C-alpha cells in the first residue's frame, strides 16, 4: 500500500496554475528524488504531500495514521522568539534528552543542542531540522533541498547518509534536489517536475540509456543540459502538452517518460491514477 498517492492533482496559487495533472505514489521504504528548475512547483508538491495545501483538482491520498517528518526548504525563526535547538526538537512532541541527543548526533550537529535557533547558519539549521524530523519516527521523511545550505563535501556525505537513514529508520524518503549527479546514486526513482511531471524513472534504467547521458550527462554540464531541457516547457498549460522541445520529445519517446521506466513507474504514470491502497 502506498504511503501517499497523488491522483491527477492540479494546484492554482494566486490565480496561477502551479501544478497540473500530477500523479505519483510513494511506496514504503523507497527513496524518491524530485528535480526541476526554480519555480517548477517542487515545494508546492511537498506541501501537497504533507497536507498544507489542498489540491484544486484531483486528490491526495494518505495512508491512515501516516507519520511524516518534514524538513522545509527554509525556516524563518522570528528573532523575538527565544528557542534553543534542544527545545525546538521537542515541538510539538516532547522528546527525551537521550532521544534528542541521538537525533542531533545522527544529523551531525550533536554539539549544537544548547544554541539558539536564530544563531544557526543555514546548513546547521537544516541539519537541526533533519534531527527534529527524525525524532518524529517518520514513515515518510520529506526533505526540501536538504543540501542547499551544505558545502560540497557536506552534500556528498549527506547523500551517502540518506541510504543509512532509510536502513536505520525504515522510512521512505521524498527529497528535492538540485545536485542531480550526486543524488542519482542515492535514489530509487527520479521525478522531473516542471509544472507537470516531465519524466520519471529508476536512475539505473534511465542512466543506462544513451539519451540519458545526452540529457543529464555527469557533472555540471549534464545538470545544465537538464535545465535547458526543462526550460523548453512553457508554463502555458493550454499548450504545454504539445509544447515539449525537440530534446524532450526525443527523451519521452526513448523511455525516459514515467510510464515506461522503473519498478514503480508502471503504476505511477500521470494517466494511470494510482490508488493509495
Amino acid at each position: 500500500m502506498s504511503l501517499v498517492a497523488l491522483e491527477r492533482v492540479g494546484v492554482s496559487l494566486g490565480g496561477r496554475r502551479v501544478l497540473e495533472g500530477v500523479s505519483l505514489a510513494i511506496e514504503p521504504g523507497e527513496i524518491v528524488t524530485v528535480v526541476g528548475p526554480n519555480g517548477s512547483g517542487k515545494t508546492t508538491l511537498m506541501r501537497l504531500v504533507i497536507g498544507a495545501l489542498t489540491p484544486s483538482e484531483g486528490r491526495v491520498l494518505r495512508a491512515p495514521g501516516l507519520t511524516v517528518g518534514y524538513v522545509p526548504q527554509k525556516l524563518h525563526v522570528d528573532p523575538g522568539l527565544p528557542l534553543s535547538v534542544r527545545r525546538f526538537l521537542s515541538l510539538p512532541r516532547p522528546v527525551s534528552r537521550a532521544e534528542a541527543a541521538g537525533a542531533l548526533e545522527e544529523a551531525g550537529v550533536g554539539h549544537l543542542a544548547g544554541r539558539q535557533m536564530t544563531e544557526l547558519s543555514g546548513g546547521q539549521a537544516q541539519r537541526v531540522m533533519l534531527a527534529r524530523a527524525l525524532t518524529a519516527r517518520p514513515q515518510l521523511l520529506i526533505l526540501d533541498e536538504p543540501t542547499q545550505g551544505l558545502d560540497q563535501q557536506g552534500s556528498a556525505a549527506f547523500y551517502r547518509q540518506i541510504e543509512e537513514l532509510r536502513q536505520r529508520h525504515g522510512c521512505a524518503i521524498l527529497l528535492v534536489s538540485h545536485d542531480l549527479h550526486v543524488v542519482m546514486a542515492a535514489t530509487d526513482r527520479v521525478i522531473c517536475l516542471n509544472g507537470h511531471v516531465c519524466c520519471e524513472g529508476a536512475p539505473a534504467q534511465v542512466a543506462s540509456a544513451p539519451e540519458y547521458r545526452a540529457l543529464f550527462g555527469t557533472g555540471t554540464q549534464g545538470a545544465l543540459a537538464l535545465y535547458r531541457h526543462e526550460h523548453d516547457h512553457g508554463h502555458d498549460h493550454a499548450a504545454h502538452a504539445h509544447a515539449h522541445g525537440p530534446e524532450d520529445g526525443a527523451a519521452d519517446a526513448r523511455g525516459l517518460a514515467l510510464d515506461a521506466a522503473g519498478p514503480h513507474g508502471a503504476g505511477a504514470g500521470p494517466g494511470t491514477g494510482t490508488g493509495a491502497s
Partner: protein
Amino acid sequence: MFDSFLTRAALAGLGIALVSAPLGCFVVWRRMAYFGHATAHASILGVALGMVLSVSILWGALAVALAMGLAVAWLGRRGHSSDASIGVLSHGALAFGLVAVALTPGLRGDLSSYLFGDILAVTRGDLAVIWGGAAAVMALLAWRWRALLTATLGPDLARAAGIDPRREELVLVVALAVVVAVALKVVGALLIGAMLVIPAAAARPLARTPEAMALLAALLGAASALGGLWLAYLFDTPAGPSIVCLAAVLFAITAMVPRRTG
C-alpha cells in the same frame, strides 16, 4: 480584604498582567501587534452596542472584539495582512466606536474610562470577571502551548505534525478577544495593546526558551501593574497610563542587557 479599592485595583492589575504575559509573547512572536490593536479598538464599539442593546458591556465588547479578530484573521489568510487594510479596520472600528458612544445616552461621560481604563473603580464583580477570564485564557494557552508554538514556527511545520495552524490561530483570536474584553475596565482600549506587547518585549533579552520568556513577562508585567498603581497613588496620576509607563521603563532597562549567546 477585597474591601479597599486599592487592593481590588492591585488584584485586577495582577490578573491582567499574568494573562497578558503568555498571550503577549505570541503577539510578539507572530508579529500580531496590529491584531491586538484592532481587537482592542473594536471593543469600544462593543461597549456602545452593549449599552444600546441593553446587554452587558462586557458581552458587547467581547462579541465585537471577537468579530474584529475573526475579520482580521480572515483578511490575513487571504493575503491582506498589509498595514493598510488592518489600519482601516482598526482605526475605523475606533472611530465608529467613539461616534457610537457619543450617540448612546448615558455613556458619554464614561468615554475616557473605556479608553484609558478606570482601575480604581474595579468592583468585586469586575474582579471575578477578570480572574475568571484570565484563568480560562491561561488554561487554554497551556493546553495548546506546544501546538501554538509549532504553528508559530511555520504553518507547514505544523501541518506535517498533524496540527491545523488555522485552528491554533483561532485559539489566539479567541484568547485575545477575551483578554481585551476583561481588561477594558483596567487599562482601557488604547492601552491593552501596550500591556500585551511591552512586558513580553522586555522579557525577550533575558530569556532563552519560550516558557522562560512568558514567565519573565508575567513577572515584569506584575511588577509594572503593582508599581504603576503605587506611583499613581503617590503622584495622583492616571493608573492605567502609569502602569504602562513603568512597563516601558522596564523594557528600556532590559533592552540594555547584552544578549547572552552560546
